[in-house]
């Protein structure tokens, strides 16, 4: 969490002067008034920083790729299937799984705010919450995919899901070729966060190897 110049490039800088001080001051006020417990605060932060994240979603996808019974359950009742792996909680109450196929590519956005399936993907990245993505994901989804460098099969239909209600969407990317016989644990390594939002696809074995060597 080092403060660097980098975050200014990504819209997470400070528009408000002295924001760090103001947050500190608010925190001490709310503690003094007995509304929040600082230790609970630390634990909450730690949970979302280290325990809840896209590895959860990757485990769901890898299981769906390797277990047809689970896949069927996931497509019929995503909430129950995902809960069976222990991923439940706030912002994941009403889950729907969207399967990418050679014919159809799904992509998720929240144009009105930043709705995102926390239990499976963690907290959303800055770009997902940004005006450029929120404005163009629905207006020019194919252009957005191109901007992400994401190639979808020729002639694919594109479906964009605007998360305007409390339904939360998890994209199930296509399983890459050349992964026959891989375990669910190995496969999960190929499942990127963006592939579960739909702005990306799963890594190929070659891409995974290259990223591990980098």
């Amino acid at each position, binding site marked *: *969490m080092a403060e660097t110049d980098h975050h200014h490039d990504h819209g*997470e800088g400070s528009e408000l002067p002295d924001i760090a001080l103001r947050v500190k001051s608010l925190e001490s006020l709310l503690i003094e*008034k007995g*509304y929040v417990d600082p230790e609970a605060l630390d634990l909450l932060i730690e949970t979302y920083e280290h325990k809840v994240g896209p590895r959860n979603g990757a485990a769901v996808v890898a299981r769906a790729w390797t277990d047809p019974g689970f896949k069927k359950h996931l497509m019929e009742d995503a909430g129950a299937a995902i809960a069976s792996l222990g991923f439940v909680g706030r912002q994941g109450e009403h889950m729907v799984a969207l399967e990418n196929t050679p014919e159809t590519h799904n992509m998720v956005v929240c144009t009105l705010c930043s709705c995102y399936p926390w239990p499976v993907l963690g907290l959303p990245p800055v770009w997902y919450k940004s005006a450029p993505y*929120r404005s163009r994901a*629905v207006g020019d989804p194919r252009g957005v995919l191109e901007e992400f460098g994401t190639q979808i099969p020729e002639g694919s239909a594109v479906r964009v899901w605007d998360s305007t209600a409390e339904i939360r969407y998890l994209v199930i990317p296509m399983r890459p070729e050349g992964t026959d016989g891989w375990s669910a644990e190995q496969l999960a390594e190929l499942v990127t966060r963006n592939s579960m939002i739909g702005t990306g696809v799963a890594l190929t074995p070659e891409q995974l190897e290259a990223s591990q060597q980098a």
Partner: protein
Amino acid sequence: MNGVHDMGGMHGFGPIDPEPDEPVFHTQWEARVYGLASAFGAVGDWTLDADRHATETIAPHIYLNASYYEKWFLSMHTLLLAGGYVSEEELASGKMATPARPVEGVLRPAGVEDYVHDASLSSRPAGSDPAYAVGQQVRARNTNPPGHTRLPRYARGRIGTVEGIHGCHIFPDSNAHGRGEQPQWLYSVRFTAQELWGAGQPRRTDIYIDLWEPYLGQVDTDD
């Protein structure tokens, strides 16, 4: 409300700029804002819908420039003041000047794990049958409420097809304003890119929007 938060289809915001290996929080204060807002959720008497509306009412020039967690910080101010939890004077000084509002259920460390895993369902038992069926065409109403709504501007007046029914869910337009949950049927409605954005749009490109029944009308009516 027709605010700047309703961004679908707007132009001019520039390229999407994904950050490689982005941390969950960029700074300590972002993490603290997240923690404060989440922890306060255990005692605060506001709803998620009121929270979203507080964010929408941030002045447009600030909304567009503020980062996500700055917006959380600002909407938290609004809700803390509105609920009488803190005073302006206290927010300015950071020091307690008035007695705390009595609250129940302050989040303690032992309760965090349950709290994180707690589900807060927005679905409610149905009091009626849905007015529309899967496969039916519907028109999103042309309506411009000044308060909270989850009917994006880009869909208003457009014709779509009901592709699914999610059940009855809390109606944000009433719940955000303290008028109760008033559950309504929630539909998954598909709009073609051509219907939303005009001729010349690529074929086989569809936008699915989750819309409550009061947002929808018959196709042969104008509103």
